[in-house]
């Protein structure tokens, strides 16, 4: 479904991503983990088509992302950025409706189908009661749900999320990730996300990819990766993994 082939990304003379090859199956959740500066954000931005590879390629459904026009790409992959810009004065419904831009274009008004899609996604994420509120009046958790709603309104097969739970409290972190997991299980959405929280990464993703200094270090089932020595080495920490009712909990241990 998503294929990264010998992908390298540079900024001037600095290598941000080096020779990453990765295949992500449709309808699965792949989380990219790694320390700060590992290249996680660069990788997801390249998958979303915001950066051009300096070498190699990213393909979605067999078509190279860098050769797609913006509109074509927006119909295949939705993006949730780490710090989404929320324009004041815009209603929640109008904000979520931005997700339909690729469907109706810039010269036509949204169709009945577009409006229905927005109504549906607002209901699905329990945002319908906020539909007419100004986006800046929402709490952090509601705001993040609204950003997810906009991405879901794009009705793509692939969603790329960069640290989607940054700044949320524990309950809202879980709520957000459960909403995503539901989309993966029920709608066959393919998710590629970056997360700093290794416990949540391990509990929600089908597969973890460990990145360090722009290189792919490990790639495999979540349970294996969180127990790997390479993970601890990348962070320069001792990590312990405890099984709590069948869920892996990753705990850093001070030297």
């Amino acid at each position, binding site marked *: 479904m998503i294929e990264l082939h010998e992908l390298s990304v540079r900024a001037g003379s600095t290598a941000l991503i080096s020779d990453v090859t990765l295949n992500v199956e449709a309808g699965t959740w792949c989380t990219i983990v790694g320390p700060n500066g590992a290249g996680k954000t660069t990788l997801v931005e390249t998958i979303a*088509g915001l950066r051009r590879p300096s070498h190699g390629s990213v393909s979605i459904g067999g078509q190279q992302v860098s050769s797609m026009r913006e509109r074509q790409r927006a119909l295949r992959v939705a993006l949730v*950025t780490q710090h989404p810009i929320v324009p004041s004065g815009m209603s929640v419904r109008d904000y979520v409706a931005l997700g339909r831009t690729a469907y109706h274009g810039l010269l036509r008004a949204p169709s009945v189908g577009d409006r229905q899609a927005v109504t549906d996604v607002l209901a699905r994420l329990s945002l319908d009661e906020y539909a007419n509120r100004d986006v800046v009046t929402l709490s952090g958790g509601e705001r993040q749900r609204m950003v997810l709603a906009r991405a879901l309104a794009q009705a793509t097969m692939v969603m790329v999320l960069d640290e989607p739970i940054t700044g949320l409290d524990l309950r809202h972190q879980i709520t957000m990730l459960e909403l995503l997991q539901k989309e993966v299980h029920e709608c066959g959405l393919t998710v590629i996300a970056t997360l700093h929280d290794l416990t949540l990464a391990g509990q929600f993703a089908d597969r973890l990819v460990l990145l360090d200094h722009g290189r792919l270090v490990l790639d495999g089932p979540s349970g294996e990766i969180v127990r790997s020595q390479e993970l601890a080495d990348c962070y320069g920490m001792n990590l312990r993994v405890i099984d709590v009712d069948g869920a892996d909990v990753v705990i850093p241990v001070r030297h």
Partner: protein
Amino acid sequence: MVLVAVATLVALAAAVVCGLVVGPTSIGTARIIGDVFSYLGLGHSTLTSTQSSIIWQIRAPRMVLGLLAGAMLAVAGGTYQGVFRNPLADPYLLGVAAGAGLGATIAIVDVGSGLAAPSWTPLLAFGGAIIAVIVTWAIGGRGLRSNTSTLILAGVAVAALFTSTQTFLQQQASTNSITRVYIWLLGSLASASWSSVTLVLPYVIACIVICVVAGRALDVMSVGEDESRSLGLPVRRVRFIVIAASSLGTAAIVSAVGLIGFVGIIVPHIVRLLVGTSYRRILPISVIFGAAFLVFADTIARTVMAPSELPLGVVTAIVGAPVFVLILSLRRQMVTSA
């Protein structure tokens, strides 16, 4: 929204009437309307030929040019604010004013070479404005790869270069030339004629249409460049088209009426307070409101000190500055209460 649209259309109609009726020569509204109907074959005009000339050869082209200038500057200001996501952006941000100022100065100032050609002022002002924007674009963005911050910085640099060249030329000029340059810089509709209207009309209409149609794209761009690209917006292409249209239309207007400040900033802000933050609503209402605003301002400019005239740029600034401050304080109150 409908109420605001109706109110601005009423204001526009009032401005048109003001533009035709108010002036040193008193001609009643009913007689002017009667004259209009006489052209449609309904009744007879009661105007003398002199009165008819005052209305249709002096006031009407001045009023129409005022409508075009106000509409273009307001919509260009709103568009710039949207595309740069900067509330202080105005149509002169990328060097249009500095370029036009230098072009006009070259035409007006005789530095002893005998090359000054005042009748070329509109052409050289237009050329200067376009060159300034092209240079800004070339420096600030390398075409389609530009981003808004580098474009703004390039605009500042180009404006500084053009303005300092203009200042140098003025230093070499006679007092009479300097006075004429200042009169031009402060803007005026006094030299309006049907030929100046027909000269700028195609540019202005085309540019206004492009800017208004771009409203939906500017709404998408309000979430930032990366996110709007991920939503399917060809950001760089849209930015290029919108900036080109705004700059071209502004250059055309500036070449005809000189530099009129504040319209491009305050009108979109007033409209934003009335209809919200969507550019789909701000831009078309700004067109109407800007047109009405400038014709009212011009009516003040030509009547307050009649028979002499106040520079139009002075009137828009005197009216505009307090309104701008009022809007800012209102907005602060709204934010605080929210």
